[in-house]
């Protein structure tokens, strides 16, 4: 943590929010005010000192001065790197105070402090005093997190935080349903935008491999690569994709087309909120984000063109609507939408620093205008909003408000010398530069933007002075004024979410504002006048702003001559001044000292109502998106009722009901019925005790096999281990071990089935078949020549041949003494030379740990071709792809790999493969080995003399090729396939 002051800038308002939020309702109002205003003022003081430190560093010649507070590591995320390996990327909680965020912090804390002070007086009669200030402090903290965050995720925390506070403060008077609805509308519109921010963030992070703004910006040259989405490349670059989605987020937060609809409704909140959140700070977060990521935006001219056109359209749309509105705050709200459009137009034409300059100046004059409107409403006791046609002549009553309001109007209208003039001029200059000088952005975009912005500027000057004249000149009507447009407007107002609480008389004696309101207005008006001096036209005068912003905001790279071209400069200045002159002049002629709206009434009726109804965008959304949504909701509801509740739940409950009905039938209540159930249980128990259960299990290990029979009271066991039908050991309850001498009696005792044993590869086959060998034939399927398996086979053979056949049989009764044997186990080790049988097994190793075992008899057994591996068996002729068969014949296992003839691993096709005991070969992709099989039997007898027998085929996988066993033909046993 390098700089504690930066951290405390965020923590102070947060602490204020927590204190006031938790304890404020119990505390004295003065204490609440002290905590709220003190925390923000403290943050402002820290911001000022940090800013001075920054300027000091800059003066010392530091390229990109920044103060960093590294708080802690929040969490880490696994991101794939270019090589595909994942690595842990930390997300730091780190605050960076640099030239861009520093200035924004000053604005947030400075204007925030003024508005807190203003609110002390404005909200003095509010009963939820502490709640208001807790929200306001929380907003300040969130906004500071947004501004100071060094990475996208942390910025998103602030982004969501200000969204939450906006929602809470719009719906501050939540008892009024319309206000709560306005809050919800803001929240929902912002959610759509937030989705865009997240998608854009992920796209950027995937390329940059980091969440930090500096890393993302330095990785921006790589972002011209095409966006890969779902495995296929889109026809746009990563930068375009990310920037368009980020801009979707900005349209939500900064009220651009198409998501701007929430901002005018947001005026339902208290006026200081409108000034702070919905004019000066939060709504400019989108512009701030674009400036932060300006190098990324510069990589994508197409996305910037979209932003420029949408920004200009928004500016124009907002201005046209503001012309005909009649409530103070509503006019200012649409003015804000319009001015935000100016800022985005500047961003779109690559004039990021100019756009941010407009953010800066706009913060002063728009906050001052809102606070002035609030002061008027406070003076005349208008709740919610004030109808300008019912005011008028207030300059006599409220001289301070009048003068500050007038200065701000001059600023926003762009009167030369005022702040708005300089910033608007910069924006227009950006547009005319694009239009007239060679840049990556299409010139037509520059022209469209310049013309639309000029029109918007004209309208701005007009409606601002319309507002000023109608409010402050003429005669005071105390809410009794005539309606310029009669019942029409009244009817429209009725469904205008009902927050226009006008028409029922204002206070006939407006009272002057107190010290707090006056102070805030004065300071802000001073800012509105002088803030522009930071960005004087650089062609003639020193421009501090661009010099200051250079390290943190990128701009369009212009050639030397283009940057000194005077054409765009004159065009921009001419257009700006002309627009101001026309707008102010027209408004002065029409409205000065008048109370009647003669001008807008003279507009064509259709045009007027179209504008008055805000281009009917809300209605359009209602008829399309919201209606569609409601339709889906109704459909889902019906589906839920009929399918889920009706069918699924209904069926389940019916099934349960049926079951319970059946079970209750059993409960007849007749004692004898219960007795019968008992008898049935006794029958089962009696069967279990009277008849033994063999439950024979076998486990083989090479040429040895262990057989295990089940356990039971009083059981005796006899085992036949060689399949000759005679029991090798007499039934004995006690432990007996019998040893057969090798080769002596073995022939008689163990005339067991010899089985062909297929090779078991000691390891699984390599998964990659191509690595096994080369493709030698594709005729009728692919045939591989496999080299490694041959050596592997030899290894297997050697291992198997090395095992000695020691014949021994052990029989023992385990666990249990005397007559009551509990279980029995027999172990047999088979001498390879002694087997003679008609049964064999094929063991097929096919790239897996456990071989497939197929039992064979004397009649042909079909083998599933797939166990021999894909394309393992070449087909000689088309359409004769019959499955392989195998059987026991003349002491050998005969395999016909394919009834039509087979290709075995690149050799000549063979019709017939013969395998002796223990021999192995390769068929297709698989290793096949013949193994002997012994049929072992156990006989279990219990105390009642009842007997159970069970047989099992024991496959002796360890028998080797040297075994001299014979396979004797017979057809005693059915053929089974074990899989």
């Amino acid at each position, binding site marked *: 943590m390098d700089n504690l002051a930066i951290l405390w800038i965020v923590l102070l308002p947060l602490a204020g929010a927590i204190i006031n939020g938790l304890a404020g309702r119990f505390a004295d109002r003065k204490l609440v005010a002290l905590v709220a205003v003190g925390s923000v003022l403290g943050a402002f003081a820290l911001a000022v000192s940090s800013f001075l430190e920054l300027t000091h560093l800059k003066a010392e010649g530091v390229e990109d001065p920044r103060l960093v507070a590294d708080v802690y590591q929040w969490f880490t995320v696994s991101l794939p790197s270019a090589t595909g390996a994942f690595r842990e990327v930390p997300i730091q909680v780190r605050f960076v105070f640099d030239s861009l965020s520093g200035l924004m912090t000053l604005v947030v804390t400075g204007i925030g402090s003024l508005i807190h002070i203003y609110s002390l007086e404005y909200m003095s009669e509010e009963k939820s005093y502490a709640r208001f200030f807790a929200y306001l402090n929380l907003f300040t903290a969130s906004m500071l997190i947004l501004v100071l965050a060094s990475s996208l995720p942390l910025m998103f925390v602030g982004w969501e935080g200000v969204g939450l506070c906006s929602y809470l403060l719009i719906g501050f008077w939540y008892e009024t349903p319309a206000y709560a609805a306005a809050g919800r509308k803001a929240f929902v519109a912002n959610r759509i935008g937030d989705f865009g921010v997240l998608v854009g963030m992920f796209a950027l992070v995937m390329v940059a491999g980091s969440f930090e703004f500096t890393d993302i910006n330095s990785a921006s040259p790589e972002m011209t690569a095409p966006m890969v989405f779902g495995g296929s490349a889109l026809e746009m670059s990563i930068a375009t994709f990310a920037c368009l989605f980020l801009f979707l987020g900005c349209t939500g937060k900064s009220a651009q087309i198409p998501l701007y609809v929430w901002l005018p409704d947001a005026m339902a909140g208290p006026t200081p909120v409108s000034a702070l959140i919905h004019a000066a700070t939060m709504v400019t977060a989108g512009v701030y984000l674009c400036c932060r990521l300006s190098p990324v935006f510069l990589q994508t001219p197409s996305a910037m063109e979209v932003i420029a056109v949408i920004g200009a359209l928004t500016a124009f749309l907002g201005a046209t609507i503001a012309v005909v509105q009649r409530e103070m705050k509503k006019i200012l709200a649409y003015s804000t939408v319009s001015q935000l459009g100016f800022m985005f137009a500047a961003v779109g034409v690559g004039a990021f620093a100019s756009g941010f300059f407009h953010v800066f100046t706009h913060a002063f004059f728009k906050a001052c205008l809102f606070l002035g409107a609030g002061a008027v409403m406070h003076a005349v006791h208008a709740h919610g909003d004030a109808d300008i046609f019912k005011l008028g002549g207030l300059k006599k009553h409220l001289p301070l408000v009048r003068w500050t309001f007038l200065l701000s109007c001059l600023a926003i209208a762009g009167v030369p010398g005022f702040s708005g003039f300089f910033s608007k001029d910069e924006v227009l200059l950006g547009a005319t530069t694009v239009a007239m000088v060679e840049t990556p952005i299409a010139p037509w975009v520059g022209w469209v933007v310049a013309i639309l912005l000029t029109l918007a500027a004209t309208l701005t000057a007009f409606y601002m002075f319309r507002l000023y004249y109608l409010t402050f000149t003429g005669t005071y009507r105390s809410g009794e004024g005539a309606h310029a447009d009669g019942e029409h407007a009244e009817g429209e107002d009725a469904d205008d979410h009902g927050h226009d609480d006008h028409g029922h008389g204002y206070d006939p004696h407006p009272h002057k504002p107190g010290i707090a309101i006056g102070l805030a207005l004065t300071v802000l008006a001073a800012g509105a006048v002088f803030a522009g001096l930071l960005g004087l036209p650089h062609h003639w005068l020193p421009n501090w702003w661009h010099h200051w912003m250079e390290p943190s905001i990128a701009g369009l790279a212009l050639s030397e001559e283009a940057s000194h071209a005077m054409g765009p400069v004159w065009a921009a200045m001419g257009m700006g001044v002309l627009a101001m002159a026309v707008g102010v002049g027209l408004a002065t002629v029409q409205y000065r000292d008048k109370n009647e709206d003669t001008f807008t009434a003279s507009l064509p009726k259709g045009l007027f109502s179209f504008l008055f109804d805000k281009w009917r965008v809300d209605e359009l959304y209602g008829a399309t998106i919201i209606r569609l949504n409601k339709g889906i909701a109704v459909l889902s509801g019906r589906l839920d009722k009929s399918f889920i509740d009706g069918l699924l739940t209904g069926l389940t409950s019916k099934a349960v009901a049926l079951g319970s009905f059946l079970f209750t039938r059993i409960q007849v209540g007749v004692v*004898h019925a219960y007795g019968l159930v008992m*008898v049935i249980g006794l029958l089962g128990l009696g069967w279990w005790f009277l008849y033994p259960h063999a439950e024979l299990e076998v486990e083989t290990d090479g040429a040895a096999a262990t057989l295990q029979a089940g356990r039971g009271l009083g059981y005796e066991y006899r085992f036949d281990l060689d399949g000759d039908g005679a029991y090798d050991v007499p039934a004995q309850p006690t432990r007996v071990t019998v040893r057969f001498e090798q080769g002596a009696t073995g022939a008689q005792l163990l005339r067991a089935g010899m089985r062909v044993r297929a090779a078991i590869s000691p390891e699984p086959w390599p998964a990659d078949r191509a690595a096994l060998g080369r493709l030698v034939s594709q005729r009728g399927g692919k045939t591989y020549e496999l080299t490694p398996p041959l050596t592997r086979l030899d290894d297997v053979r050697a291992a198997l041949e090395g095992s000695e056949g020691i014949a021994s049989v052990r029989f023992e009764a385990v666990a249990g003494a005397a007559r009551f044997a509990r279980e029995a186990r027999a172990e047999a080790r088979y001498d390879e030379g002694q087997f003679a049988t008609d049964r064999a097994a094929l063991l097929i190793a096919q790239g897996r740990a456990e071989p497939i075992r197929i039992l064979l008899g004397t009649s042909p057994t079909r083998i599933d071709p797939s166990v021999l591996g894909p394309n393992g068996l070449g087909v000689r002729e088309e359409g004769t792809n019959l499955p392989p068969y195998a059987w026991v014949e003349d002491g050998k296992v005969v395999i016909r790999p394919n009834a039509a003839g087979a290709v075995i691993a690149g050799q000549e096709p063979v019709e017939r493969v013969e395998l002796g005991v223990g021999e192995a070969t390769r068929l297709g992709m698989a290793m096949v080995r013949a193994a002997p099989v012994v049929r072992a039997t156990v006989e279990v007898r219990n105390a009642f003399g009842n007997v159970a027998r069970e047989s099992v085929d024991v496959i002796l996988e360890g028998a080797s090729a040297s075994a001299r066993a014979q396979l004797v033909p017979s057809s005693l046993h059915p053929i089974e396939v074990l899989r």
Partner: protein
Amino acid sequence: MELGLGAYLTFASVLFGIGAVGFLVRRNALVQLMSIELMLNSVNVVLVAANRFHPDNHAGQVFAFFVIAVAAAEAAVGLAILIALYRLNRNIETDRAHVLKH
């Protein structure tokens, strides 16, 4: 015919079967209690007979003694319940004693 443990076991199982049939078929609670006594006695026969063929100790006879004792207790309690039932229903038919069904 050689008479051994098998004969006693066979006899005991038949006696047990008769007792079980009596318990399940008769409805008179008194007779059912008597059937239970029959079954208990058949078990006693098995215990004593098995003891006779493994005469190392008296485990079977001692166990049979305990069975007799418990049977006596069972008879006492069972008959008491029967009397209570008779007081309630004025009969001792077990298939009419189904109040607890519901």
